[in-house]
C-alpha cells in the first residue's frame, strides 16, 4: 500500500511540475495589449508639407455666370525624410464658396483642383504623378521613392459659377493634405 501511495505522490509531483511549466508557457505568451504597449523608438525622419501662399485670388476671363474662375494655389512642398519606400499621397479639398451676403453659395463640387505630372522641382529618386480632384476631395499628387525625397508642385484651382449664381464675391478654404 505504501508503494502505491509513494507512486501516487511522485506522479502528483510530476503533474504539479508540468502544470507549473504549462502555466509558465501561458504566462510567457504575452497578451495582445502587452505586445501593443511594448514599443521601440523610431529613427528620426518625418513627413512635411508647406504652402508658400496662404491665400489666392481667382481670375476669370469672362467674369460671367456659367464660366470658371481659376488660379494657381502656389507652390506646395512635400518633404519625406522617413527614409522608407512607402511613398505619400497629397490630396486637396475645398469648402463651399460663400457669398459676401453669407447666404448664397457655390458648392464645392463645382471646384476642380488639378496637378499635372510636372513639378517645380523634385529629388531625382522620386516618381511623381499628378491627378485632378474635385473640391469634394481626392488625390492631386502621388510621390514614390526609395529613401528620402521631396517635391515642389503648383496645382491650379478652377471654380465654375453656374448659371443662376448670385453675382458677387465668394470666398472659401482650400486644404492641402499629405499623408
Amino acid at each position, binding site marked *: *500500500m505504501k508503494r*502505491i501511495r509513494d507512486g501516487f505522490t511522485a506522479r*502528483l509531483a510530476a*503533474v504539479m511540475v*508540468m502544470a507549473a511549466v*504549462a502555466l509558465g508557457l501561458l504566462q510567457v*505568451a*504575452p497578451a*495582445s*495589449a502587452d*505586445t501593443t*504597449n*511594448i*514599443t*521601440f*523608438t*523610431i*529613427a528620426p525622419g*518625418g*513627413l*512635411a508639407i*508647406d*504652402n508658400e*501662399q*496662404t*491665400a*489666392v*485670388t*481667382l481670375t476669370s476671363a469672362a467674369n460671367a455666370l456659367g464660366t470658371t474662375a481659376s488660379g494657381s*494655389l502656389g507652390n506646395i*512642398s512635400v*518633404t519625406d525624410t*522617413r*527614409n*522608407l*519606400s*512607402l*511613398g*505619400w*499621397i497629397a*490630396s486637396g479639398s*475645398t469648402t463651399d464658396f460663400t457669398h459676401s451676403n453669407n447666404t448664397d453659395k457655390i458648392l464645392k463640387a463645382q471646384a476642380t483642383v488639378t496637378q499635372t505630372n510636372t513639378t517645380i522641382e523634385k*529629388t531625382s529618386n522620386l*516618381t511623381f504623378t499628378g491627378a485632378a480632384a474635385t473640391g469634394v*476631395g481626392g*488625390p492631386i499628387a*502621388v510621390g*514614390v521613392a*526609395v*529613401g*528620402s525625397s521631396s517635391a515642389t508642385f503648383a496645382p491650379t484651382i478652377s471654380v465654375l459659377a453656374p448659371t443662376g449664381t448670385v453675382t458677387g464675391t*465668394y*470666398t472659401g*478654404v*482650400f*486644404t*492641402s*493634405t*499629405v*499623408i
Partner: protein
Amino acid sequence: MRPLLLTALIAGALLAPAIDASAQDERTGIVIRLLEAPEARRDDPRARAYIVDHVPPGTSFTRAVEVTNDTDEHVSLQLYDAAAEIRDGRFTVLDGRAENQLTPWVTMSPGSVELDPDQSTRVSVAVDVPKNAPDGEFYAGAMAERPAPDSGQVRIATRVGIRIYLSVGTGAEPVSDFRVESLTGERRADGRPVVRAVVVNIGGRALDLVGELGLRDGPGGATAGPFAADVATTLAPRGRAPVSVLLEPALPAGPWLAVMTVTSGSLQRAAQATVSFPEPGQVGPPVAAQPVPVPESAEPVIGPDGAPVPGPADDADDPGGDGGPKQANGVPWWSLLLALLLLVALLFFLFFGWRRRKQDEEDEQQAKVSRGAPR
C-alpha cells in the same frame, strides 16, 4: 552586394546629406513624425511610418508623435484625428474632421499647440477600443493642421498626418497576403510602354504596395530593369488594384518575360508572365501570372538607417524566422500547442490518480469487510 542595393545605398548616402543641407536653407513646413512602434513589428517598415496594429476589443494603447514648426513664422496648429478610407487604391483622409467608426476611439492630446520657428512638441495619440467594438479593420489619420488665415478669397490650409490602420478582433491577427493575378503589356499614346499588374489582396489586412519590374528573355535574349512602379497603391482586404510600371519608348515590343515583384512592408511576392507591347494607344491581353521566387535584385525596402530591411518572400510575416505561422502578437504556435499538451497530460494524470485512490479505498473497504466477516 547586389547592384541595386549598392545603388540604393549610395543614392541614400548622397541624398541624406543633400536633404539635411537643403533643410538649413529651405524650410519644409509643418513636420509630423511617429516616435514609437510596437516591438512585435520591428521588422515591418510600415509600422515605422504608420500606426499599424491588431488588438482585441477593450484594448487601450498610445503612440507618441512629434510635431515640428519648420517655418520662419509662429504657427498655431490644430491636432485631431480624421476619418480615412481606401478609395481607388489610395489611402484618402476625408475632408475636415470627418468621423467614422474609428475616430471616436482616438484622442490626440493636446488638441492644439502654439509653436515658434524650429520648435517641436510631443503629442500623444491615444486609442481606446471599446469592449463591444466589432471585428474589422479601420482607417484614420492623426493630423496636424495649420488652419487657413482669416482673410482672402481662397484661403489655404495645410495639414500633414500619420496613417492609422487598426485591426480589431479576438484571437490571431488576420494574415497579410496578396497575389499577382495577371500582367498586361500596354503602350500609351505617347509611345511609352507600360506593364500593368493586377494585384489581389487575399489577406485580412490592408496593404501598401510598391512594385518593381524586371524584363528578360526579350528579343535577342535582351534583359532590362529593374524598373520601379510609378505609384504607391493601398489595397483594402479583398480588394484588387493595378500596379503599373512605366517604361522607356525605346524598349522593343518583345515578347518579354516580365517578372513583377510587389512589396507591402516586409511581405514580398513575385510573379511572371510573357507580355508584348502593342501599338501606341493599345492595350494587350491580360496574361495570367505564375508565382515565382522573389528575384535577388528586388530590394525596394530600405530601413531608416539606410540598411535593407529583411523581407524573405515565404517568411515575410515571420520575423522570428522559425518558418512557422505565428499566433497573434508574435507568440509561436508551438508554445501554445505544448501548453495544451501539458494540460491534457495533467488532466490524464489527475484522472488516473483519482481512479487509483478510489480503487485503493475500495480495496481497503473490501479488506475490512473480509476481516470482519465470520469465518
